């Protein structure tokens, strides 16, 4: 809790290490983009594959676009993206900071009068918060595209009809909560990964342990944030 409070305070106070923030946005965002995009596309594709025949059985095949779109923007896109970033970027941050801790690079920052909370933690937490909604939005679009491929081929839905149905049934109030909850995923992943890195002791073995713990805890945090923030948003929006 104390670490989180200090990290959040560091994120909103000067100086802002803008160069380091950009570096982290690149490391966490751009380098995760291909993975979150590929998974988003595949999830849309597979979800549509599994849903199309069930809908046809009930004579509701034309609703495929709405079902796939809603599932992706409200749950599948945000959660899959959150889990991928938790695993990929969480491991990276935990290992990098853990390694800096055991080689005394964090002490070196402190003795050069640079606050590690501002330079290391605030930049990484902010980067996670910035990139997650963007990665999710891209994964959402690609997931819908995956669904469109199945809908137009297996489901025999006209390409434009599929898109029109998607546009008609998915409202801003469906997309918005999905993107808002990724902010909480970003905060949780950034904080946990940095915290675990700062707690690293015991050389390279300690870095390995920290990295594993970061991934475990960050994935769990994404799942828990999903439950609580979704519930909160449902309450606020009804």
């Amino acid at each position, binding site marked *: 809790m104390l670490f989180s409070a200090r990290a959040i305070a560091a994120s909103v106070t000067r*100086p802002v290490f803008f160069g380091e923030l950009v570096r982290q946005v690149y490391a966490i965002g751009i380098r995760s983009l291909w993975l979150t995009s590929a998974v988003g596309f595949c999830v849309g594709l597979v979800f549509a594959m599994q849903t199309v025949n069930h809908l046809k059985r009930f004579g509701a095949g034309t609703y495929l676009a709405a079902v796939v779109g809603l599932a992706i923007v409200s749950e599948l896109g945000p959660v899959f993206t959150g889990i991928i970033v938790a695993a990929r970027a969480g491991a990276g941050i935990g290992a*990098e900071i853990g*390694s*800096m801790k055991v*080689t*005394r*690079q964090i*002490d*070196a920052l*402190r*003795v*050069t*009068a*640079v*606050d590690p909370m501002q330079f290391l933690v605030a930049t990484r937490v902010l980067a996670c918060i910035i990139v997650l909604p963007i990665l999710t939005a891209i994964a959402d679009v690609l997931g819908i595209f995956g669904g469109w491929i199945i809908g137009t081929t297996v489901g025999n839905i006209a390409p434009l009809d599929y898109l029109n149905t998607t546009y008609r049934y998915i409202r801003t109030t469906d997309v918005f909560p999905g993107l808002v909850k990724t902010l909480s995923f970003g905060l949780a992943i950034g904080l946990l990964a940095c915290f675990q890195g700062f707690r690293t002791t015991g050389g390279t073995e300690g870095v390995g342990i920290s990295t594993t713990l970061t991934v475990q805890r960050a994935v769990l945090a994404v799942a828990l944030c999903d439950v609580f923030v979704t519930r909160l948003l449902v309450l606020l929006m009804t």
Partner: protein
Amino acid sequence: MSEQAPQTQHVDTPIVAEDVYKSFDEQPVLRGVSLTVETGKTVVIVGASGSGKTVFVSMFVGLVTPDSGTIRVFGDDVTKFTSETEWNRLRMRIGFVFQGSALYDSMTVGANVAFPLRHHLRLPQHELEERVIQKLRLVGLEDAVDKLPSQISGGMQKRAGLARALALDPDLVIYDEPTAGLDPLRAESVSRHIRELQTKLGNTAVVVTHDMACAFIVGDHIAFLAEGVIAEQGNVEQLARSSDPRVRKFFTVAECLQGGTEQ
């Protein structure tokens, strides 16, 4: 430089430590260490591995907090500091060379040296680059400016760490085991480099080492830390004449090793 610090110290004396205690998990490491480091002098703290030398000097920059005692750094009682802001003001006057160099491994050697300058001085880019090259030239590493720490040798990493510590022209430089992990020839070269720099720059230095050859080369004054206290201090000749069996043993073994190396 005496074990018992005088009652009145000049306000800008780099280090005045009095009766410093520190324990870890109820294991006492420092049991009343007192030491004064005067301006322009190089004081070497010698002692066996695990004797608490690094713990002691880490207190001068706020990396370790003493359990009791007082430490004045440039006149400020750092044991009364309550915020990082107070520490950071002081840290700007101190350069710290870490045992393992602690270079930022994602940055080039040049970027490592530029790091403190970039964050504390608003210098134009060309001036920043000039300062970096100037610092690297001091340690003979101007050709390694674009290399990553992993691409240079251990001795070069030590010197790069030294260049980074000197970036802000500190009044006090603390060297933590500057020759650890180096072969005897490189260790001697690094020691001579430190001595030359101290002579050239005229700043104050505290060197922590268990390498007696390094202590002889760089030190104006040597303090021997044993069993949590400064057991003996003085210049090399005074320590060599010490009646303390721990000091004598340390010196004898060091001289034997040196003799062996020279042969």
